[in-house]
């Protein structure tokens, strides 16, 4: 009896918590969609009133004026490449650190972790100089390199932790079977660390997708710029077309949510691949 009661109480608690946070998270999104269907005058009058007429043309205007399609494609290319490289490099490094013993590994790990606390906004001039020095100003490769690099500390940190969680026995068995270094990484560790890879990859992708300062600083031509430029297109020094901006924001969310869902599906398939023990 007592067990049943506690179960009920717990499950009420559970749903209260989940629902309230869902509301917390979803409310801004709903507001955003609603606001993007207003006129600017309506928005300034009262941000929470419903629009008189839904202004669906805000979307077509936004997509056309700011050339959102091209920018989204650019963002997809840049974010995908940067995420792939970042996860590849970070997982290689994390594998080396988490699964091997060498005398300077703690120093290395601490140093890379410390990279998380570097205030990237303070490095505008050095980054501009480095990218110019490499002759990568206004190129996709330049942005890819920067995004790949700035995400390395977080990705390495997360992945090291996930690699550490994989039981030693699995790797040792494969080692005895004659698997070499590279094979252990590709065949054994990567599949087992899929939830970790997907998680780190999600964050890396979101970082690339949402990054604004360096996207503006290191590029100048529209053929290369990312979706964040499309969002800023609607704000100016003295005038902001909020509803146009909101429409652009809503459009920009769709691809990144899709990527999130795809990546997170890997976490589940990673699970069903089985043979993993906490």
């Amino acid at each position: 009896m007592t067990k049943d009661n506690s179960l009920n109480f717990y499950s009420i608690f559970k749903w209260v918590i989940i629902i309230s946070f869902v509301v917390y998270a979803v409310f801004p999104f709903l507001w955003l969609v609603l606001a993007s269907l207003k006129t600017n005058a309506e928005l300034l009058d009262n941000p929470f009133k419903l629009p008189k007429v839904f202004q669906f043309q805000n979307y077509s205007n936004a997509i056309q004026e700011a050339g959102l399609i091209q920018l989204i494609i650019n963002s997809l290319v840049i974010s995908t490449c940067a995420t792939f490289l970042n996860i590849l490099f970070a997982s290689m490094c994390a594998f080396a650190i988490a699964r091997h013993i060498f005398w300077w590994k703690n120093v290395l790990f601490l140093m890379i972790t410390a990279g998380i606390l570097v205030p990237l906004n303070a490095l505008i001039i050095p980054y501009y100089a480095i990218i110019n020095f490499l002759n990568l100003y206004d190129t996709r490769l330049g942005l890819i390199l920067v995004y790949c690099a700035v995400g390395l500390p977080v990705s390495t940190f997360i992945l090291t932790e996930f690699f550490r969680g994989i039981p030693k026995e699995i790797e040792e068995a494969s080692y005895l079977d004659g698997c070499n270094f590279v094979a252990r990484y590709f065949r054994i560790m990567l599949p087992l660390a899929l939830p970790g890879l997907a998680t780190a990859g999600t964050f890396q992708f979101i970082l690339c997708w949402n990054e604004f300062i360096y996207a503006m600083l290191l590029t100048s031509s529209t053929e290369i710029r990312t979706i964040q430029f499309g969002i800023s297109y609607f704000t100016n020094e003295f005038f902001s077309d909020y509803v146009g901006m909101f429409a652009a924001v809503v459009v920009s969310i769709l691809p990144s949510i899709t990527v999130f869902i795809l990546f997170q599906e890997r976490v589940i398939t990673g699970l069903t691949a089985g043979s993993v023990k906490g």
Partner: protein
Amino acid sequence: MKIKKDEVGWLLLFIAPTLILFTLFFILPILFLLASSFTNWDGIDAEFVGFENYIKLFNKKSFVRAITNNLYWCITAALITVPLGLIIALLLSHRSRGWKVFRTVLFVPQVVSSAAIAMLWAAVFNAEYGLLNFILDNIGLSDYKNHNWLGNVRTANAALIGFSLCYVGYFMVIMLAKTASISEDYYDAAKIDGASQIQKDFYITAPLIKSTFFLCIILAVIFNLRQFEYVYLMTAGGPANKTQVLVVYIWNELTVQRLGRGSAAGVIMIALGAMLLLLLRRILKSETYN
């Protein structure tokens, strides 16, 4: 695993790409930051001024305020945001109906441009037509009818934290991913023992993802040390510098072309972060690292 002689090359090769990029985009810029922090560089001229920038910074009330505010952000992140994320991750790990939808929904704020979300929350907290005051007024708290949440010294920081809680999904997703790697065997065994759901959550799942929980705390503390966007977009450090944080302070120094002093503030921030990191490692040591 001990490294065999013939595998040392592979090991180095695996570390090399990260190390090269890290050197290029972290170590070099930081050395540059350090060097310029001892000058009065303004973009054109630079003279060596010794520790002047550092001394001036620590004599600024607004800079000291920024440090304490950052610590406040770090502490609330470790004590509120991450534990909340853990609770939600535990609840979602039951995989009840619709858990995938909830997971995605909770992550949505992460992918929405923060400029747009900040604009919404500024409107929620607005004193004239804000939603929060409207609700409070309607449930009888008429004192709050025109309360300016972000413009009041007492409530500005709290309102910012409240706003930041909508990003709890970030840490929830990391911890939830970790629960995916827990073997069903544990739960089957617990079922046989007649454990309730709450017992399973707190005696099986929670301990097994403890290391990830600590990882999240470390990440949360560091992220909040370099807190920029929320504060910059919502209050820009105001009113009266009361919500100032380090990175906003640095950004302002760069905007007014005091690049040397901005660098010094950056160096102080990195030093502070390194100390916090070492402290956290010591506190969480036995659990996370071998």
